């Protein structure tokens, strides 16, 4: 996660200033909550990557969350700050991680949220089409609790709610990339493995670079229907080599992207049925021939969820990405580079069983890609020792036909993890 932005810093100063306004003076109520969390994840394959943080443990961290909410009866507003103090034993590092910090304000049919905030769109279950907001893939692949999959964005959200139509507009002046696994801690496929000079070219925080997302939604015929539009950038980096013949330097770039999509979710066939589609317009490479910039693509998802017996739920999804200019992509690909499929598809299954008055939870989430013939299995057993203390044991099992595909590349990163959480 990137350091504190000026926007957030300003917001924090603003919020901590007691003389903010006359009516704000005395009536603020502050509620402090939080939890202590330990995440420990060990590689089970016996291999240790060569990177600087290559250890038997992928995660060895303790976190303390402070969760502050402040509100007043004087205005329809509240502030929220979620701050994690993290000790990372793998990198031997202490740091403060500002998960969220925002001000909520309501005026009539409009709700505003200003500051760092987590945003989630779409109906996919761990598959993302119109959810273009930053994600921490390291968390997902190494066993941090689910909430750490999402990274906050710094911006302003406005929501307009009426009987006829609801709208949500999000403006994000400061770009936040995905956190993707790196060679520091993971075994992975890297087309430029021999290149050590690595740079990152993050977009400047300017008005022109401000990302804008719009979601329009309402109920139609028993379904929740949303339309989405986004203008911003690819969150996962493209790799730009200084020359294609004999690269000496590789720069991570975040090329311009626009996304347009639709989703619908409702009751059907005795369960919950979900549809989502989106078109990814890769604005800097509409011809599809630039190797460093992802091709434009169409994404489609259908999902179904049903309770089969008390406390047992089954979920299944089919997802496919269709590359726009596969021939151009193929032509641009140097020899020896791993090639992705034109139709890249994934099937997922989620099984959840609660036991013992929902104190025990057994779950399995499985990704399988027919196109790549690779998979990721995520079994988990969790137990609530008491209302405050919970423990989860789980695993991430990667595999596949090749070590160059999305899940297959992490074949040597199989891990088992333990989460311990105490709420206060």
């Amino acid at each position: 996660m990137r350091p504190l932005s000026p926007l957030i810093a300003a917001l924090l100063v603003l919020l901590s200033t007691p003389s903010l306004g006359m009516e704000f003076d005395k009536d603020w109520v502050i509620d402090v909550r939080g939890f202590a969390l330990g995440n420990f994840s060990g590689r089970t394959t016996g291999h240790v990557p060569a990177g600087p943080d290559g250890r038997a443990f992928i995660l060895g961290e303790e976190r303390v969350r402070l969760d502050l909410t402040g509100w007043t009866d004087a205005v329809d507003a509240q502030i929220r700050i979620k701050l994690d103090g993290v000790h990372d034993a793998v990198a031997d590092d202490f740091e403060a991680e500002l998960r969220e910090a925002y001000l909520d304000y309501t005026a009539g049919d409009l709700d505003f949220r200003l500051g760092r905030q987590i945003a989630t769109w779409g109906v996919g279950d761990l598959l993302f089409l119109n959810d273009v907001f930053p994600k921490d893939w390291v968390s997902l692949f190494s066993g941090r609790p689910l909430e750490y999959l999402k990274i906050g964005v710094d911006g302003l959200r406005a929501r307009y709610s009426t009987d006829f139509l609801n709208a949500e507009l999000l403006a994000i002046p400061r770009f936040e990339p995905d956190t993707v696994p790196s060679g520091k801690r993971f075994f992975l496929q890297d087309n430029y493995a021999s290149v050590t000079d690595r740079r990152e070219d993050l977009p400047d925080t300017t008005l022109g670079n401000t990302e804008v997302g719009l979601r329009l939604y309402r109920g139609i015929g028993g379904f929740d229907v949303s339309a989405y539009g986004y203008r911003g950038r690819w969150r996962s980096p493209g790799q730009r080599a200084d020359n294609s013949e004999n690269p000496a330097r590789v720069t991570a770039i975040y090329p311009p992207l626009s996304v347009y999509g639709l989703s619908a979710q409702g009751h059907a066939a005795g369960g919950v049925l979900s549809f989502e589609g989106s078109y990814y317009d890769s604005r800097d490479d509409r011809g599809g021939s630039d190797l460093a910039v992802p091709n434009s693509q169409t994404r489609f998802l259908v999902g179904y969820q049903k309770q089969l017996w008390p406390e047992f739920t089954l979920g299944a999804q089919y997802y496919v990405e269709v590359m726009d200019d596969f021939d151009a992509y193929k032509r641009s690909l140097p020899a020896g580079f791993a090639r992705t499929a034109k139709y890249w598809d994934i099937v997922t299954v989620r099984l959840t069983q609660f036991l013992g008055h929902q104190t025990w939870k057994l779950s399995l989430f499985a990704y399988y890609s027919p196109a790549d013939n690779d998979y990721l299995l995520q079994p988990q057993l969790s137990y609530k020792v008491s209302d405050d203390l919970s423990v989860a044991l789980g695993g991430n099992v990667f595999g596949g036909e090749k070590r160059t595909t999305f899940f297959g590349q992490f074949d040597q990163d199989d891990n088992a993890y333990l989460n311990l959480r105490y709420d206060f």
Partner: protein
Amino acid sequence: MKPLLTRLAAILLFAGAGAIQFGHALGASADEIMTRSQRAFHYAGSDAKGRLTMELIDRGGGKRVRVLTMLRRNQEDGGDQKYFIYFHEPGDVRRLTFMVWKYLAREDDRWIFVPAVDLIRRIAAEDKYASFVGSDFTYEDVSGRDVAEDTHTVVREERLGERDTFVIESLPRAPSAFSMRISWIDSENFLPLKEEFYDAQGELHRVFTADKVEDIAAGEGREARVYPTATKRTMKNVKTGHRTEVSVNAVTYDLGLEDDDFAERRMRRPPSDWIR
């Protein structure tokens, strides 16, 4: 299925000309009692708000606590309803909200909002016999069961504690979570004071008791009303020894909740006077 056989035998015994009419009359009044009971228990007021503390207590006395605010709006009396639930405790589900649009004629719509990931999602709602937040209450216990789903018979009238009650036997018309339910309905305010649920083997499975009933006033002047409310309730699973005790606090009726109070907007940002 012993109770069903007993009942069939009783009907056959009364299969004389006059006896059938008697049976019909008794059945109709049992339906009426159950309808009034449902209105008093699940439909009191045009809407309602309360803070529930649920204690889930296992056989050994181990206790887990859920604290939640529940709002309900009747779309029409005895008809469809909307529910909104906000979790205060325990910490791992704090601020989570849950919304149900309950329909008599079809499956309910249910949504959950998980604030930690800013996620609103529909959840599969087929199983109304599933446990409500891990307690001994099912979703159906919380939001009520359509009177027409069972055939009801007044078995007797008897005194339960200090109150006069109708004792009603209810047999599901279609397979259900219970094979028979015996209800003790207060003959004055029609609240269910006790219910026994029998399982498929005809054995006693769960027992509900209304442990404390209070009169809650609402409105003023000519609009003033009083709603008798079971403010302490227990559901005990006699087979496992597990029980759930609920106390309902800060109950208010007829708040004037609007239809659009039960929408995504409120799930994401519940008004402070609902939850504080």
